[in-house]
Protein backbone atom coordinates (compact mmCIF):
# COMPACT_ATOMS: atom_id res chain seq x y z
CA UNK A 1 0.00 0.00 0.00
CA UNK A 2 1.54 3.26 -1.03
CA UNK A 3 -1.36 5.71 -0.78
CA UNK A 4 -0.38 8.51 1.55
CA UNK A 5 -3.94 9.22 2.63
CA UNK A 6 -4.10 5.87 4.36
CA UNK A 7 -3.45 6.33 7.99
CA UNK A 8 -3.12 3.75 10.68
CA UNK A 9 -4.48 0.46 10.76
CA UNK A 10 -4.61 -2.74 12.58
CA UNK A 11 -3.83 -2.41 16.26
CA UNK A 12 -3.09 -5.04 18.88
CA UNK A 13 -2.44 -4.25 22.56
CA UNK A 14 -1.06 -6.40 25.31
CA UNK A 15 0.05 -6.04 28.92
CA UNK A 16 3.31 -7.53 30.11
CA UNK A 17 4.50 -8.16 33.62
CA UNK A 18 8.08 -7.55 32.43
CA UNK A 19 9.42 -3.98 32.43
CA UNK A 20 9.17 -1.72 29.37
CA UNK A 21 12.94 -1.99 28.89
CA UNK A 22 12.96 -5.78 28.83
CA UNK A 23 10.00 -5.91 26.45
CA UNK A 24 11.62 -3.33 24.19
CA UNK A 25 15.03 -4.99 24.16
CA UNK A 26 13.58 -8.35 23.17
CA UNK A 27 12.72 -6.93 19.73
CA UNK A 28 16.31 -5.95 19.00
CA UNK A 29 18.27 -8.72 20.69
CA UNK A 30 18.94 -11.42 18.05
CA UNK A 31 18.92 -14.20 20.61
CA UNK A 32 15.49 -13.27 22.03
CA UNK A 33 13.91 -11.94 18.83
CA UNK A 34 14.71 -15.21 17.10
CA UNK A 35 12.64 -17.05 19.68
CA UNK A 36 9.40 -15.13 19.36
CA UNK A 37 9.39 -12.80 16.36
CA UNK A 38 7.99 -14.37 13.18
CA UNK A 39 8.47 -17.70 14.88
CA UNK A 40 5.82 -20.37 14.41
CA UNK A 41 5.37 -23.28 16.83
CA UNK A 42 6.64 -25.89 14.37
CA UNK A 43 9.19 -23.78 12.50
CA UNK A 44 12.92 -23.55 13.08
CA UNK A 45 14.64 -20.15 13.11
CA UNK A 46 17.69 -20.63 10.92
CA UNK A 47 18.91 -17.05 10.66
CA UNK A 48 18.41 -13.99 12.81
CA UNK A 49 20.44 -10.93 11.88
CA UNK A 50 19.68 -7.60 13.50
CA UNK A 51 21.47 -4.30 13.03
CA UNK A 52 19.74 -2.28 15.76
CA UNK A 53 20.20 1.30 14.62
CA UNK A 54 18.08 3.71 12.59
CA UNK A 55 18.59 2.74 8.96
CA UNK A 56 19.91 -0.65 10.04
CA UNK A 57 18.30 -3.80 8.68
CA UNK A 58 17.11 -7.09 10.04
CA UNK A 59 16.63 -10.47 8.47
CA UNK A 60 14.89 -13.39 10.15
CA UNK A 61 14.57 -16.66 8.30
CA UNK A 62 12.42 -19.44 9.61
CA UNK A 63 12.33 -22.89 8.08
CA UNK A 64 8.72 -24.09 7.83
CA UNK A 65 8.14 -27.58 6.48
CA UNK A 66 11.48 -27.48 4.69
CA UNK A 67 10.83 -24.06 3.18
CA UNK A 68 12.71 -20.94 4.22
CA UNK A 69 10.47 -17.95 4.95
CA UNK A 70 12.38 -14.70 5.08
CA UNK A 71 11.23 -11.61 7.03
CA UNK A 72 13.07 -8.43 6.12
CA UNK A 73 12.97 -4.82 7.13
CA UNK A 74 14.67 -1.65 8.20
CA UNK A 75 14.54 0.25 11.48
CA UNK A 76 13.03 3.71 11.11
CA UNK A 77 12.85 4.86 14.75
CA UNK A 78 14.47 3.45 17.85
CA UNK A 79 13.51 5.25 21.06
CA UNK A 80 14.17 2.90 23.95
CA UNK A 81 11.97 1.83 25.68
CA UNK A 82 8.96 3.70 24.30
CA UNK A 83 8.88 3.43 20.56
CA UNK A 84 10.20 1.24 17.78
CA UNK A 85 9.27 1.64 14.12
CA UNK A 86 10.37 -0.74 11.40
CA UNK A 87 9.34 -1.84 7.94
CA UNK A 88 8.40 -5.44 7.25
CA UNK A 89 8.20 -7.45 4.09
CA UNK A 90 7.88 -11.15 3.46
CA UNK A 91 9.02 -11.58 -0.17
CA UNK A 92 7.77 -15.14 -0.32
CA UNK A 93 4.16 -13.98 0.11
CA UNK A 94 4.03 -10.46 -1.26
CA UNK A 95 6.01 -7.70 -2.87
CA UNK A 96 4.35 -5.21 -0.50
CA UNK A 97 6.09 -3.71 2.49
CA UNK A 98 4.33 -2.50 5.61
CA UNK A 99 5.32 -0.29 8.55
CA UNK A 100 5.09 -1.69 12.07
CA UNK A 101 5.06 0.63 15.07
CA UNK A 102 5.61 -0.66 18.58
CA UNK A 103 4.69 1.68 21.43
CA UNK A 104 5.40 0.70 25.01
CA UNK A 105 3.89 2.51 27.99
CA UNK A 106 5.38 1.71 31.40
CA UNK A 107 2.81 0.79 34.07
CA UNK A 108 3.19 0.57 37.86
CA UNK A 109 4.16 -3.02 37.31
CA UNK A 110 5.11 -4.10 33.85
CA UNK A 111 4.01 -2.29 30.73
CA UNK A 112 1.50 -2.14 27.95
CA UNK A 113 2.58 -2.65 24.35
CA UNK A 114 0.56 -1.46 21.37
CA UNK A 115 1.49 -2.73 17.96
CA UNK A 116 0.24 -0.98 14.85
CA UNK A 117 0.41 -2.62 11.45
CA UNK A 118 -0.04 -0.04 8.73
CA UNK A 119 -0.89 -2.46 6.00
CA UNK A 120 -4.53 -1.91 6.95
CA UNK A 121 -6.15 1.53 7.24
CA UNK A 122 -7.74 2.05 10.66
CA UNK A 123 -11.22 2.58 9.41
CA UNK A 124 -11.17 -0.87 7.83
CA UNK A 125 -9.58 -2.86 10.59
CA UNK A 126 -12.73 -3.82 12.47
CA UNK A 127 -15.11 -4.25 9.62
CA UNK A 128 -17.07 -7.13 8.30
CA UNK A 129 -19.15 -6.95 5.16
CA UNK A 130 -21.92 -4.91 6.84
CA UNK A 131 -19.34 -2.53 8.22
CA UNK A 132 -18.02 -1.76 4.79
CA UNK A 133 -21.37 -0.33 3.76
CA UNK A 134 -21.21 2.37 6.39
CA UNK A 135 -17.62 3.20 5.54
CA UNK A 136 -18.45 3.56 1.89
CA UNK A 137 -21.55 5.60 2.68
CA UNK A 138 -19.61 7.95 4.92
CA UNK A 139 -17.00 8.48 2.27
CA UNK A 140 -19.51 8.92 -0.48
CA UNK A 141 -21.06 11.84 1.42
CA UNK A 142 -17.78 13.70 1.42
CA UNK A 143 -17.46 13.30 -2.34
CA UNK A 144 -20.99 14.20 -3.40
Amino acid at each position, binding site marked *: *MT*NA*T*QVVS*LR*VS*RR*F*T*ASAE*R*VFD*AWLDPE*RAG*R*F*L*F*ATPTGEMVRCEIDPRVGGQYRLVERRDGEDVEHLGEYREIDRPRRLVFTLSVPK*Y*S*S*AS*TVITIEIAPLDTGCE*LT*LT*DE*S*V*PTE*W*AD*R*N*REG*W*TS*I*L*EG*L*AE*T*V*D
Partner: protein
Amino acid sequence: MNDILDQTMTALAHPIRRAILERLMRGEARVTDLARPFKMSLNAVSKHIRVLERARLVRRRRVWREHRVSFNPEPLDEVSSWIEKRRAFWTQQLDALDALLTGEDADTHRPGPVK
Protein backbone atom coordinates in the same frame (compact mmCIF):
# COMPACT_ATOMS: atom_id res chain seq x y z
CA MET B 1 -0.33 -9.26 2.18
CA ASN B 2 -0.80 -11.06 -1.06
CA ASP B 3 -1.00 -9.21 -4.34
CA ILE B 4 -4.72 -9.82 -4.92
CA LEU B 5 -5.57 -8.16 -1.62
CA ASP B 6 -3.16 -5.39 -2.46
CA GLN B 7 -5.11 -4.82 -5.66
CA THR B 8 -8.42 -4.72 -3.76
CA MET B 9 -7.10 -2.24 -1.24
CA THR B 10 -5.54 -0.07 -3.92
CA ALA B 11 -8.89 -0.01 -5.71
CA LEU B 12 -10.58 1.04 -2.46
CA ALA B 13 -8.00 3.72 -1.76
CA HIS B 14 -9.69 6.28 -4.04
CA PRO B 15 -12.74 8.26 -2.77
CA ILE B 16 -14.46 8.28 -6.17
CA ARG B 17 -14.17 4.51 -6.45
CA ARG B 18 -15.54 4.04 -2.95
CA ALA B 19 -18.43 6.32 -3.83
CA ILE B 20 -19.10 4.29 -6.97
CA LEU B 21 -19.16 1.12 -4.88
CA GLU B 22 -21.44 2.70 -2.32
CA ARG B 23 -23.88 3.54 -5.10
CA LEU B 24 -23.62 0.01 -6.54
CA MET B 25 -24.38 -1.53 -3.15
CA ARG B 26 -27.88 -0.17 -3.68
CA GLY B 27 -28.16 -1.93 -7.04
CA GLU B 28 -26.91 -2.25 -10.56
CA ALA B 29 -26.37 0.99 -12.48
CA ARG B 30 -25.53 2.28 -15.93
CA VAL B 31 -22.12 3.85 -16.42
CA THR B 32 -23.81 7.13 -17.36
CA ASP B 33 -25.76 7.10 -14.05
CA LEU B 34 -22.56 6.52 -12.13
CA ALA B 35 -20.85 9.43 -13.82
CA ARG B 36 -23.62 11.95 -13.09
CA PRO B 37 -23.03 12.81 -9.37
CA PHE B 38 -19.30 13.32 -9.85
CA LYS B 39 -19.26 15.99 -12.56
CA MET B 40 -16.68 13.88 -14.33
CA SER B 41 -16.39 12.79 -17.94
CA LEU B 42 -17.69 9.38 -18.86
CA ASN B 43 -14.16 8.47 -19.79
CA ALA B 44 -12.77 9.36 -16.35
CA VAL B 45 -15.49 7.36 -14.62
CA SER B 46 -14.86 4.42 -16.93
CA LYS B 47 -11.23 4.40 -15.87
CA HIS B 48 -12.25 4.12 -12.23
CA ILE B 49 -14.67 1.35 -13.09
CA ARG B 50 -11.90 -0.54 -14.85
CA VAL B 51 -9.74 -0.37 -11.72
CA LEU B 52 -12.67 -1.77 -9.72
CA GLU B 53 -13.22 -4.45 -12.34
CA ARG B 54 -9.59 -5.56 -12.19
CA ALA B 55 -9.96 -5.91 -8.43
CA ARG B 56 -13.15 -7.94 -9.06
CA LEU B 57 -15.15 -5.47 -6.95
CA VAL B 58 -17.54 -4.79 -9.83
CA ARG B 59 -18.87 -6.74 -12.75
CA ARG B 60 -19.87 -5.19 -16.02
CA ARG B 61 -22.45 -6.54 -18.45
CA ARG B 62 -23.85 -5.27 -21.68
CA VAL B 63 -27.57 -4.73 -22.16
CA TRP B 64 -28.24 -3.57 -25.70
CA ARG B 65 -25.88 -0.66 -26.12
CA GLU B 66 -25.53 0.12 -22.43
CA HIS B 67 -22.99 -1.06 -19.95
CA ARG B 68 -24.52 -2.07 -16.63
CA VAL B 69 -22.27 -2.31 -13.62
CA SER B 70 -22.90 -4.28 -10.44
CA PHE B 71 -21.15 -4.77 -7.12
CA ASN B 72 -19.31 -7.96 -6.16
CA PRO B 73 -18.67 -8.11 -2.38
CA GLU B 74 -16.39 -11.18 -2.36
CA PRO B 75 -13.07 -9.31 -2.38
CA LEU B 76 -14.22 -7.32 0.69
CA ASP B 77 -14.77 -10.56 2.56
CA GLU B 78 -11.25 -11.59 1.61
CA VAL B 79 -9.89 -8.33 2.98
CA SER B 80 -11.81 -8.84 6.25
CA SER B 81 -10.55 -12.37 6.60
CA TRP B 82 -6.99 -11.29 5.83
CA ILE B 83 -7.25 -8.63 8.55
CA GLU B 84 -8.43 -11.28 11.02
CA LYS B 85 -5.48 -13.52 10.16
CA ARG B 86 -3.09 -10.64 10.52
CA ARG B 87 -4.51 -9.77 13.93
CA ALA B 88 -4.22 -13.39 15.04
CA PHE B 89 -0.63 -13.45 13.77
CA TRP B 90 0.43 -10.45 15.86
CA THR B 91 -1.49 -11.67 18.90
CA GLN B 92 0.44 -14.92 18.67
CA GLN B 93 3.76 -13.03 18.38
CA LEU B 94 2.99 -11.03 21.52
CA ASP B 95 1.90 -14.17 23.37
CA ALA B 96 5.20 -15.77 22.44
CA LEU B 97 7.12 -12.70 23.65
CA ASP B 98 5.27 -12.79 26.96
CA ALA B 99 5.97 -16.52 27.34
CA LEU B 100 9.65 -15.92 26.58
CA LEU B 101 10.03 -13.18 29.21
CA THR B 102 7.94 -15.00 31.80
CA GLY B 103 10.07 -18.09 31.20
CA GLU B 104 13.24 -16.08 31.83
CA ASP B 105 11.79 -14.82 35.12
CA ALA B 106 11.01 -18.37 36.21
CA ASP B 107 14.57 -19.44 35.33
CA THR B 108 16.15 -16.70 37.44
CA HIS B 109 14.07 -17.73 40.48
CA ARG B 110 15.02 -21.37 40.14
CA PRO B 111 18.42 -22.90 40.91
CA GLY B 112 20.40 -23.23 37.67
CA PRO B 113 21.25 -26.59 36.13
CA VAL B 114 24.19 -28.39 37.66
CA LYS B 115 27.11 -28.18 35.28
